């Protein structure tokens, strides 16, 4: 069972729909016990970085950290990926999980913010998540803050600056774009995760 974490950060229904469409059982939940039983965890999220403090409030942070130490595959999408970094300019007082180094920053004022639309990936390392997703693939992005390119960056994207579009380390995965809204390539990526 795949647990899709509900922490009041936007619309989780679309992620659930996509996973179900691919034929994998999943549940949207904020119940720590249910998350603990899951064999994979999806951390979606659009919205403000401070929403991640709801994870702490609901006792989900501990469960997620615990799952990480048990090497349960975790995929953070958009805000879910940013939470895996140390912090964000959007809410500097809220700490991230610090599984990846660096702070998320706001796009510069000289370009339109948010970065909305289809943009191309530069895949640096296929890893397990980007199997059959070559460089040049278009994915759908919508975000105002970006995560830095780090050692564990598997895919980059460029909008005013180069930023992390995908990160991977062991059983930890993150993507800045929305695979559930990126047509067939997005579904391929979700399938790669569900198949782990």
């Amino acid at each position, binding site marked *: 069972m795949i647990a899709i974490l509900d922490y009041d950060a936007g619309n989780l229904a679309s992620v659930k*729909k*996509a996973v179900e469409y691919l034929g994998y059982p999943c549940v949207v939940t904020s119940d720590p016990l249910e998350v603990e039983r899951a064999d994979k965890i999806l951390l979606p999220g659009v919205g403000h970085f401070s929403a991640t403090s709801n994870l702490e409030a609901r006792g989900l942070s501990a469960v997620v950290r615990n799952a990480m130490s048990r090497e349960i595959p975790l995929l953070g999408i958009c805000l879910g990926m940013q939470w895996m970094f140390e912090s964000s300019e959007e809410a500097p007082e809220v700490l991230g999980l610090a599984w990846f180094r660096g702070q998320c920053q706001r796009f510069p004022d000289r370009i*339109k913010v*948010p970065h909305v639309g*289809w943009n191309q990936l530069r895949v640096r390392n296929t890893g397990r998540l980007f199997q059959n997703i070559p460089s040049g693939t278009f994915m*759908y992005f*919508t975000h105002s803050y970006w995560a830095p390119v780090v050692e564990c960056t598997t895919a980059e994207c460029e909008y005013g600056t180069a930023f992390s579009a995908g990160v991977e380390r062991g059983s930890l995965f993150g993507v800045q774009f929305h695979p559930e*809204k990126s*047509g067939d390539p997005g579904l391929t990526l979700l399938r790669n995760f569900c198949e782990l």
Partner: protein
Amino acid sequence: MLTKRVIACLDVDAGRVVKGVHFADLRDAGDPAELAPAYSRSGADEIILLDISAANQKRSTLLEIVRKTAQHLFVPFTVGGGIRSLNDATAVFDAGADKIAVNSAALENPALISQIARRYGSQAVVVAVDAKSSFTLRGNYEVWACGGKQSTGKEVLAWVRETEDRGAGEILLTSIDRDGTGDGFDCELTARVAVAVRIPVIASGGAGNACHFVQVFKEGKADAALAASVFHYGINTLSGLKQELALAGLPVRWPC
């Protein structure tokens, strides 16, 4: 590079698509739940469903349509028409929309924009603005409400800046003068708005052929362009349009 988006618009009245049924080379399905995925497969970067039913009692029908349309649609999906409160917006999001579009209700109660943006994020809030050139505003454009039937006296640039300040994530800008004419987008209007705000602008109204799209992206500085009935006037498929845009040197998602 961030691509220019081509958005397919489904105008829905009483549950059926009433315009734009030739978008994807289909012989009328008329059913948004069939058309939306078909458009997506043929290259639409996004789908907007606008409920143009006049009567409010059809809300429950709309939600059912949104649910069915969203079921197997894996590109961004915006729903507009008759959203008058945060509760209305919540119902539409719960039914499967990724973004909502507000128009007249935002003009009556601009705080609605920030209410929805605070709950769902700015990226989920599209403000639809219907504009018409105006003599009284000395060559500037005026915002019209209620599907272009009611004058508001508001000047377009002032209004779009206000919506941006209140948390709008995108502007869907329709030229009432051009809408349905097939004479091309209003590039001047679009460019004025596109440089006035720092959020993406979707141009709408007047698309007749591929050149019009090229113009509105280049001269109009639009981030996205929307069309419904354009394919009655010569362009057969969305994929053909995307190909032409790519040939014109525009960054588009093609092949997709």
